[in-house]
């Protein structure tokens, strides 16, 4: 699913965000990327979705190399990804339902499927009753779930969630992580970046990627989930 080979990322201001990292993520895998703030978690996710491009090395997602020159391929790759952004990126002035639908209108769904997928996704995250509420009137936790609904309504092959538990209390954070983890399916992988390591201490059958100052170490945990 994802192949990161000897990748370094240096921003224009000279900051080295990733330093020669290697990572492979297969199908049907649940990956937690952990580490303190500034360790490179978000940078790694940005590389995977094509918001940034590696300074050196290669990133391949679903067989497609992430490269600035291949914008058409990148666009079709992004259609297969369900991103949950750290800052949510919901569109104000629209309801929860409209936000979810907006994220899937340009995918290969009919008009009926768009509405049905959006309604199903909101139901899965427990927000059916808030479907018509404007997103600016929702709590952070609810808005977070709308963002997840937008990601899963796309029926993606890869879900990328960047700090989905930020600003949430313990119960809500666990709830959000469980919702996201439940979408790990036969051909869908889920990657969650979080600095809340205490929430994943007891997780089984997952891959834990620990990041620190741009370097990584990988731990594959087996056992029953």
């Amino acid at each position, binding site marked *: 699913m994802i192949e990161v080979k000897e990748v370094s990322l240096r921003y224009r201001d000279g900051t080295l965000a990733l330093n020669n990292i290697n990572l492979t993520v297969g199908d049907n895998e649940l990956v937690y990327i952990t580490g303190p703030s500034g360790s490179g978690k978000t940078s790694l996710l940005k590389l995977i979705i094509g918001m940034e491009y590696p300074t050196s090395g290669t990133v391949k997602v679903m067989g497609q190399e992430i490269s600035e020159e291949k914008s058409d391929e990148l*666009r079709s790759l992004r259609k297969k990804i369900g991103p949950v952004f750290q800052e949510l*990126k919901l569109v104000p002035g629209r309801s929860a339902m409209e936000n979810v639908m*907006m994220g899937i209108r340009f995918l290969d769904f009919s008009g009926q499927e768009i509405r049905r997928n959006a309604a199903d996704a909101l139901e899965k995250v427990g927000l059916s009753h808030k479907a018509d509420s404007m997103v600016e009137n929702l709590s952070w936790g609810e808005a977070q779930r709308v963002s997840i609904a937008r990601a899963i309504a796309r029926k993606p092959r890869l879900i990328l969630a960047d700090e989905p538990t930020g600003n949430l209390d313990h119960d809500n954070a666990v709830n959000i992580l469980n919702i996201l983890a439940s979408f790990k399916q036969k051909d869908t992988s889920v990657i969650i970046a979080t600095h809340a390591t205490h929430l994943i201490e007891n997780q089984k059958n997952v891959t834990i990627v620990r990041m620190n100052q741009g370097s990584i170490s990988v731990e594959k945990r087996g056992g029953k989930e």
Partner: protein
Amino acid sequence: MKNFISNLGYFFKEAGRIIFSNKLSNIFTFSGTVLILLMLASVVAGWNVSSRLVGMLEEEAEISAFFDEDLDQKEALELAEKLSKLDGVRNARVVDESEAYERMKEILADDAGILELFEHNPFKAYIEIRIDPGRTESIIETVRGFKEIGYVRDNKSVLKSINDIIRGIKTIGTLIIFAVGITTVIIISHMIRQGIYNNRDQIKTLRLLGASPMFIGFPFICVGLFMTVAAGILTSLVMLILINKGYQIMGGSIPFIPLPPKADLLLGVTLVIMGVSIILGTIGSLFGLSSIKDQ
């Protein structure tokens, strides 16, 4: 395509949101567009009327070719036939002595009595040649080249004036239409750029989700089209009132101005304004859309 049609409602709704999210600025843009289109409509209406005037002036452009007196009527008719086939000649016909006399009588009107002082008709037959005023010089040269032609009365200064008026009207009209077109495109593209800037976060998100430039940009094209078409409709309505009023005033007090049928003028102006609105709205939107890349 399936997506596009099922998303039409979304595109229109988004276009409405873009317009109403920046109401004051868009009201100014709309008003500006209406005023510019009004200027264009006035030029189009003026052009329509003046093209009739130009047509009349062009019809009046003529030279008189006096032929040898030895030619009989049949030969004169054959010569007129030859002249009428020249490039730039609209029509050539023989004006015989008696018609020439009657014309002069008409011109002299109250002073026509002076003609009775002549024992015989003093006027000669000639060939009246109606020509394209833009080609006066070359036609006169060609006509003079005919051996049967003795003298050509060319009214060059009159023909030159007619030609200058025609060229002036056409140049001013073209310049105004050009200026109006460019101004409208600039206004609309600026409005679209502003809309794109105001919605830059949404655009970034849609791009990250894999939306195509067409999906992202189409609501903005709709905005440009809505604004110009609405401005076109309002302009047409205002022109309906103005033309009605104009016909009442001009038709009554300046009866010699050759006004075209009112319905034809209204239809012509409306079609041009609506066509131009759609074209300029689309071009302006497409220009404005180029700024999406910067977001």
